């Protein structure tokens, strides 16, 4: 049985408090009046002008062009920037909320795969997976509240522009999609997804604990768990795909990509497995998971390695197909990202692919806890940036910065995630002793 140490509890509460402060600061500083935005823009251009006089002539030429535009620059530009600024704290929260929600969802999918495939190595880690997926219900509800809340609270700061009736009014493309992209349908779909996932999680957990208390040889709960896992995986593949269109892709309602759902899935499963490995290593370090040996860590690290490459494969497939064909209506997505987010967009490729590829290729490294921890931290940072680059260009555009609102949001939801996961860990023994594969799992050796 695990009990949260007071230190850890205080730590996560401090994270939440700091996060709330950061988010509040973000909201207080983001809502500027039109006049303030205009003075800000003028100052920015004056500043840029000073720089160009010193720097190379190429930049100077670019700035002359934009300065010419400034002469004619009307309120339209200022209003646009004002909206972008107002959207920043909302988007920062949304990215963090999505980040932790996708981790919990990835863990739940991984857990269902292990049960449906009757994996012999995994049962010693089932309680860890169940605990992490406990964050799914609150996490997904927060995501939805933020998505819809950004429309109803405040003025013109919605994360999804198709929720703004004024935008839709003079946008033929969104009008044509409004049969799918409207708030009622969005909410109905979200409720179906969240209800389905949470129902699976609830029953899987229930059967898992019931199997512990069952008579030896009574495997009825195990069999039920197997059946619902298989059913959930079918449901999950459909809903995950639709979820990625709804919650992520529709921030750019003019753009679409067919393999987007898989791409989002690869990111969430790699994040989920990484968190499983990190929690398992933490608990093992505390001596609470004596049956987990370094072969289990090795297996998790292999999954981290493999799914990192799978992520890179899908990232590249999506990027290269669009880059190669260069069809204007598709390519704007990457043009805006490469222009304004160059470092993040290509940097995350290093964090999510090159680094894990080189670090986790060696079989011996995968058995060393601190190596897996280090790789895990890098993968999680890379996965956060991945979501950041999916959402931010559509909401704040080139007005992005990783500052107090973004870090505050990560701390807020990170603290909440920690608190929910650790609380859930305390509610059941860490060894699922009734599982028919537990003996095999304890003796697992690779």
């Amino acid at each position, binding site marked *: 049985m695990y009990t949260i140490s007071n230190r850890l509890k205080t730590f996560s509460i401090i994270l939440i408090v700091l996060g709330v402060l950061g988010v509040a600061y973000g909201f207080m500083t983001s809502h500027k009046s039109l006049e303030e935005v205009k003075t800000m823009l003028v100052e920015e251009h004056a500043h840029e002008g000073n720089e160009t006089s010193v720097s190379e002539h190429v930049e100077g030429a670019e700035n002359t062009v934009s300065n010419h535009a400034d002469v004619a620059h009307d309120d339209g530009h200022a209003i646009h920037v004002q909206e972008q600024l107002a959207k920043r704290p909302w988007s920062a929260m949304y990215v963090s909320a999505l980040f932790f929600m996708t981790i919990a969802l990835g863990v739940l999918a991984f857990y269902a795969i292990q049960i449906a495939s009757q994996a012999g190595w995994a049962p010693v880690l089932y309680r860890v997976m169940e605990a992490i997926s406990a964050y799914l219900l609150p996490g997904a509800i927060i995501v939805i509240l933020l998505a819809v809340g950004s429309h109803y609270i405040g003025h013109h700061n919605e994360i999804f522009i198709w929720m703004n009736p004024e935008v839709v009014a003079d946008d033929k493309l969104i009008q044509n999609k409004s049969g799918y992209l409207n708030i009622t349908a969005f909410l109905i779909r979200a409720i179906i997804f969240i209800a389905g996932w949470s129902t699976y999680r609830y029953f899987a957990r229930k059967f898992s604990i019931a199997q512990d208390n069952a008579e030896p040889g009574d495997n009825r709960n195990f069999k039920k768990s197997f059946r619902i896992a298989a059913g959930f995986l079918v449901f999950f593949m459909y809903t995950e795909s639709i979820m990625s269109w709804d919650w992520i892709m529709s921030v750019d309602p003019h753009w679409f990509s067919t393999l987007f759902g898989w791409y989002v899935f690869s990111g969430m499963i790699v994040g989920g497995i990484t968190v499983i490995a990190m929690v398992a290593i933490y608990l093992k370090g505390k001596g609470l998971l004596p049956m987990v040996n370094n072969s289990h860590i090795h297996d998790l690290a292999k999954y981290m390695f493999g799914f990192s490459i799978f992520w890179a494969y899908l990232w*590249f497939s999506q*990027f*290269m197909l669009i*880059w*190669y064909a*260069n069809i204007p209506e598709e390519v704007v997505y990457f043009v805006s990202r490469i222009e304004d987010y160059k470092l993040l967009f290509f940097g995350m490729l290093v964090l999510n692919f090159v680094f894990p590829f080189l670090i986790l*290729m060696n*079989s011996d490294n995968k058995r060393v806890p601190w190596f897996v921890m280090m790789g895990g931290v890098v993968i999680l940072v890379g996965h956060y940036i991945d979501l950041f680059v999916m959402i931010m260009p559509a909401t704040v555009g080139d007005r992005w910065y990783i500052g107090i609102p973004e870090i505050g949001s990560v701390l807020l939801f990170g603290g909440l995630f920690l608190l929910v996961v650790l609380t859930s860990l305390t509610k059941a023994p860490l060894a699922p002793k009734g599982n028919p594969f537990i003996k095999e799992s304890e003796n697992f050796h690779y």
Partner: protein
Amino acid sequence: MEGTSKVIHAMYTDDDVLMAAVKKVRAERYHIEEIYTPFPVHGLDKAMGLAPTRLAITSFLYGLVGLVVSIVMIDYMMIEDWPQNIGGKPSFSYLENMPAFVPIMFELTVFFAAHLLVITFYLRSRLWPFKKAENPDTRTTDDHFLMEITAGDNVDEQFDILRNTGAVEVTLIDKAH
């Protein structure tokens, strides 16, 4: 003794018995020359104390060679030698047109890593067509396991030890060199 060396062949019919025998023989500090088995016996290399293979490392290096070959080849052909405008693809620098080259870079890396690895394996384990089979007893390809140890000064004692480990057949062999 010049020109010949004596070895003892011990025959087993079960891999578990064989594993126990290997541990016993090694504890007695006799040198195991070779073991012939019809299928891979899990953990036998560890029990025999064989050094781990370095084939994976060679494969990684071959992969790097393949990657370099592909980059140099494409850069020379598409960018340096004859940079044509093919369908508007930017051929001013390697990096600009790189996404189009990645499939080739990937495939050549895998090709080199896989094929050179296999060839290395054949060379290191001396396998080639028309090679004369080195099997001392044809039963070891079916259902028998054979352990070959160097015969020491006291062959009778070695025979006793091997029989005690469960060997079904122990023979002294003169190996002509």
